[in-house]
């Protein structure tokens, strides 16, 4: 497995690594354990709709981060008057399921057509 | 040489079988010692087995035809404890005197080391190796008391 050099990702997010389906036994790991924190493919093109965060309405409550089934929502450090951190979405992981928009108590996330 | 011990849980029946095996090993023989297997309950009938040979002992089956039977509790001198013992076999039964000796020295009616003294007297194993086995098992005052009981029973 190797990190894709063309993939400019936040270094703190899981990296996308290229992986080929093994064609012979020796290409398989001999044990079912693999380095964690990597993705073998991005999900960006799985989406029909994408979540957009309204930073003014967002209260940084963390509900969406907690409930995202793919851990695609995370906190990013920012220098703003309101907070030292703000919600960010990893669009390479996000599959567009809309759970975050559905659960947000402040209507701070809207789903938009891709 | 096959020795079978009969007693009740808590009387040190298997300890006697094991110490005899240890003594025989120290004397240069091969031996095997095992209890009647099962749940351990104070007061329940218990059997201990010791097999001694000049060749490695490979037979782990129960002793059905003992050369020697040792009965630690005289109330257990019955058909079951005597079963399989040859006409010219040796039967050692705890007596009132031995129990009194144990009560005097140990303060308890535990006669297993005294019975080992009687086995040594009958030349089943040499006294010095039984002493060695007892030294391996006990410490401090209990060691001294058991050695005294062993020697007194041997000297009787």
């Amino acid at each position, binding site marked *: 497995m190797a990190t894709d050099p063309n993939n400019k990702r936040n270094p703190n997010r899981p990296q996308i690594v290229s992986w080929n*389906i*093994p064609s012979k*036994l020796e290409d*398989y790991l*001999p*044990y*079912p*354990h*693999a*380095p*964690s*924190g990597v993705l073998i493919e991005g999900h960006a093109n799985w989406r029909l709709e994408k979540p957009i965060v309204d930073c003014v309405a967002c209260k940084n409550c963390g509900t969406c981060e907690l409930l995202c089934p793919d851990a695609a929502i995370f906190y990013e450090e920012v220098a703003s008057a309101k907070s030292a951190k703000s919600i960010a979405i990893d669009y390479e992981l996000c599959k567009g399921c809309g759970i975050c928009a559905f659960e947000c108590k402040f209507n701070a996330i809207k789903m938009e057509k891709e | 040489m096959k020795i079978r011990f009969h007693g009740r849980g808590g009387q040190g029946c298997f300890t006697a079988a*094991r110490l005899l*095996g*240890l003594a025989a*090993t120290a004397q240069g023989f*091969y*031996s*095997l*010692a*095992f*209890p009647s*297997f*099962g*749940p351990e309950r104070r007061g329940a009938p218990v059997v201990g087995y010791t097999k001694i040979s000049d060749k490695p*002992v*490979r*037979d*782990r*089956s*129960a002793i*059905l035809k003992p050369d020697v039977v040792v009965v630690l509790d005289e109330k257990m001198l019955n058909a079951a404890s005597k079963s399989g013992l040859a006409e010219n076999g040796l039967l050692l039964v705890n007596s009132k005197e031995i129990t009194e000796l144990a009560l005097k020295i140990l303060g308890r009616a535990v006669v297993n080391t005294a019975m080992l003294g009687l086995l040594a007297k009958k030349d089943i194993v040499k006294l010095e190796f039984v002493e060695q086995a007892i030294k391996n098992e006990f410490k401090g005052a209990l060691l001294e008391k058991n050695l005294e009981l062993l020697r007194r029973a041997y000297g009787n």
Partner: protein
Amino acid sequence: MAIQKFLSGNEAIAEAVKLAKPAVIAVYPITPQTTVVEKLADFVANGELKTEFINVESEHSALSALMGASAMGVRTFTATSSQGLLYMSECLHYAAGGRFPIVMMNANRAVALPWNIFGDQRDSLSQLESGWIQLYAENAQEAFDLTLSSFAIAENHAVALPVMLNVDGFALTHTYEPLNIISQEDADKILPPFKPFFEMNLEKPLSLGFSAGPRDNTAFKQHQINGMKAAAKLINEKFGDLVDAYKLENAKYAIITLGSISGLVRDVIDELQSDGVKVGLLRLRSLRPFPEEELRSALANFKTVGVLEKNLSVGAENAVAKEIKSALYGLENAPQVLAFSGGLGGRDISANEIKDIISKIIGGEK
């Protein structure tokens, strides 16, 4: 330098575990394995063994805890018996599939119902397909030696499989006999420090036990098969062969055994051979890897062989007998194979009963 001691099989195993110095022991006590746990706890309490000793609440947890510890790259040990082994069953497959080199002592004991705490081999034989290496010891000395060997086999990188060392409950676990205990220095030569096959730590986090679907699952099983083949080679080369032949040279009939009953069978064979009876013994030291080639070459010209196992397959021929038959299949003039169950629920097997079995083997009757 070895010193001679007079110990039970369980104490012998505890002494060997002390010399192997596992970093983590997770164990739940069960008769007749309990005195292994007690002895190891004594060693920890008096400072003779430095290990993380985890008193778990079940056998399932014991093996689960050890898989985690093993993934962190340390040597691990547990011990169980009977119902405890069966309660572990899910984790047995898990540990073998995960290639965790855990060593486990199993005190062979009957399984319920009816309830029975005595020795037989139904527990481990019901788990033959769990992917574990399964070894069987004959006496306390072999149990001691095989404990150290088990770690060396499991931790070999070509093998990387867990080892179940089986010792007959009571007949071996609770019987005292003389044996030689080797020094720490000599033990260290047999068993070098553990080098993990894979390792997880904070710098190198792993996704442990990922899923492999229909396309990929078979490949991981093929890797496991290769590990077992490597174990067979390693045992034959360094740890005393998968099978132990006794006076087979001029024999036409053989009795096949596993575990501690083999000692008495040797006594009976000595007696019968001196009377001119052509019967020998083949003892199976390993059931996984199964010694197929060894059996085919050792028994090629035999007339009849009888397999004595402390086991019963209800509704089929006994498990070990069936495997022997399978191993000999296709040999020209393959010997007839007879199956015998004995010692169920701790039932004593006497010399006369062994003689009866041998006369049935010679008579070719079931």
